[in-house]
């Protein structure tokens, strides 16, 4: 067992699956010789050769479309977009083809592609490098959106994504690529998709989050715990489809819920969770559901981004706000 970072867990999962399945190949910009700009694919070229580790020309629509063509013939391509900010040239292919291929051929062809992209703010990157646009993809029928929040999750969920017979958008929270190290057994064991994980049990309020915001959420929960407020933290992990059963079980216990995400508030994934809580848990809730999110602004360039990101303080404030609200 080794202690590894989230980005190393990504590499480890890809290497494991490439070792065990000849149909798994990886393509993207700078991924082969350079090992990826975040070094997520380092060593793969040496291990698996240039036929399976493909440096592509600089064209994201091409990366997406070509991966779909490969997948239709039985390969299991992992297509890397260097940053989520550049995925939009490939959006047409993800939306119009990857998500629809099985449906529009009535199962004759399928599209087991994993589209990987680092996403999210907090690393003082150039413009267009820091957005969290998972909701754009969560709106698309026919694909899954998965976001890991730790090295172990990255390993297990990425294995699951590669083995999944349908397309998966796998968004990697780059702010926590190297934030923590965890012991991750390289045993090829996948974690389940379509499943939210309770990463800390609690009684007074349910905090739902995913990706890098796990960090702030956990810190907020620790501080609140010192004040006697017990938080249950749910790592959503699969952003689409949402595992509402886990959320509803938790909210049934805590009666209160705060959703935390980096993405803009309006039409964010939090809005969908709130809507479903209204549909299924209106009579259980003791307080309105709160959202702590990015603002409905353009993601600010490096100097202002810290003011945009949901902070520990904002999360604590939201929790306290709904704890004093009583639905009598």
């Amino acid at each position: 067992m080794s202690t590894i970072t989230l980005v190393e867990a990504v590499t480890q999962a890809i290497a494991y699956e490439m070792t065990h399945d000849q149909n798994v190949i990886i393509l993207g910009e700078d991924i082969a010789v350079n090992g990826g700009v975040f070094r997520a694919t380092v060593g793969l070229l040496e291990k698996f050769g240039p036929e399976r580790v493909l440096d592509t020309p600089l064209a994201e629509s091409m990366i997406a479309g070509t991966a779909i063509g490969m997948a239709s013939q039985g390969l299991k391509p992992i297509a890397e977009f260097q940053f989520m900010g550049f995925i939009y040239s490939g959006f047409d292919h993800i939306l119009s083809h990857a998500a629809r291929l099985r449906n529009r051929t009535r199962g004759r062809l399928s599209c087991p592609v994993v589209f990987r992209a680092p996403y999210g703010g907090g690393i003082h990157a150039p413009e267009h490098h820091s957005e969290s646009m998972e909701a754009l993809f969560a709106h698309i029928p026919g694909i899954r959106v998965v976001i890991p929040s730790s090295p172990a999750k990255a390993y297990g969920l990425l294995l699951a994504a590669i083995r999944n017979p349908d397309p998966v958008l796998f968004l990697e929270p780059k702010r926590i690529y190297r934030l923590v190290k965890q012991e991750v057994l390289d045993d090829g064991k996948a974690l389940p998709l379509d499943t939210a994980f309770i990463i800390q049990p609690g009684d007074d309020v349910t905090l739902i989050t995913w990706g890098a915001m796990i960090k702030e959420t956990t810190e907020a929960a620790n501080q609140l715990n010192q004040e006697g407020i017990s938080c249950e933290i749910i790592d959503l992990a699969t952003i689409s489809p949402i595992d509402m059963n886990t959320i509803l079980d938790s909210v049934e216990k805590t009666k209160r819920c705060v959703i935390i995400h980096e993405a803009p508030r309006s039409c964010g994934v939090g809005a969908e969770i709130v809507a479903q809580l209204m549909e299924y848990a209106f009579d259980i809730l003791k307080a309105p559901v709160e959202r702590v999110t990015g603002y409905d602004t353009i993601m600010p360039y490096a100097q202002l981004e810290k003011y945009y990101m949901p902070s520990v303080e904002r999360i604590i404030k939201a929790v306290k706000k709904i704890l004093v609200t009583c639905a009598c």
Partner: protein
Amino acid sequence: MKKIAAFEISYLQYLNEHSEPTQAFPAFATDEALLKFYKQMTLLRVFDYKMVNLHRIGKIGTFPSSLGQEAIFVATGLAMQKEDILCPFYRDHGVAISRGYLFSDILAYWSGDERGNNSQFAKKDFPVCIPIAGQCLHATGVAYAIKYKKENKVVVANIGDGGTSKGDFYEAMNLAGIWNLPLVFIVDNNQWAISVPVTKQTAAETLAQKGIAAGIDCIQVDGNDVIAVFEAVQNAITQSRQGGKPTVIEAISFRLADHTTVDDATRYTKEEVKKDAWKKEPIARLGYYLEEKKLWSREKEAELQEECKQAVEQAFEKYFLIKKQTPESMFDFLFETLPDSLIDQRNDLVSEFTAHSKEK
């Protein structure tokens, strides 16, 4: 200044618009082969007329006729081997039919039934690509998979003249060149992208030359000369199958039909332009030649027309008897296994539909 590179585009034609040979025919163009081309093109035209009529009487949805471009579609379909893979654009049913698809596949698709994309003839072909030019990039992926698995197949991707303005077309040619993929692009230059003429798509003299920048082979052919199209497509496929370069073929034709059954081409096409184009169309061109060679006659033509009509009519009658898909089948192929979160929605639809059925 010194010249560091020079390029030229060749033009291929065997039978001109006056049905006169312009050079000795290639070896494949036996009397038998020419008659096969003629019959297959006629069948396609009969099919297209029938489809347009079915739309007029509300039996099928919007349909893009291949009228006037039969040579391109038939030659392409016949030049491909069964195991080769087609990545078609939306006007490619002529290629599909010539490859062996059932009429009912085409009819189902343009009637709004996804099962039309589930052809059992060519299980690895892509379904028609409706968003323009995307098929070119699926084709690069398919071609890479073939190469990776060391299969002896070739991919054919078709695109219209308008589609050559899109980035996907350039990105696909570029990748095909770098990765030396077993891939043939066929540009069906029918002069029109709905109402926009090719002169408003590009300032380039030819569309074929767009392959030059990608470092792949390119050629322009008379797209109304079925012999020329077949020769070019077959050569390109053979070259790719033998590990040679990918090719882009520009086939010059003219869209004699409206863009689709919901378009009115009189809004943007001058009558005399269309009249002139009718003089160059592929079926009559080959027909006159065959008559001249005493290979064809009015009697044979009448017989063929009758045969084609019957084949098409029979297929249509059978198709309209096929049971429709159930409403809940919209959930059936969304994923391999329907996620739990969608089971409620599926049940909602079923109960809604059952309630409506009872009301009726």
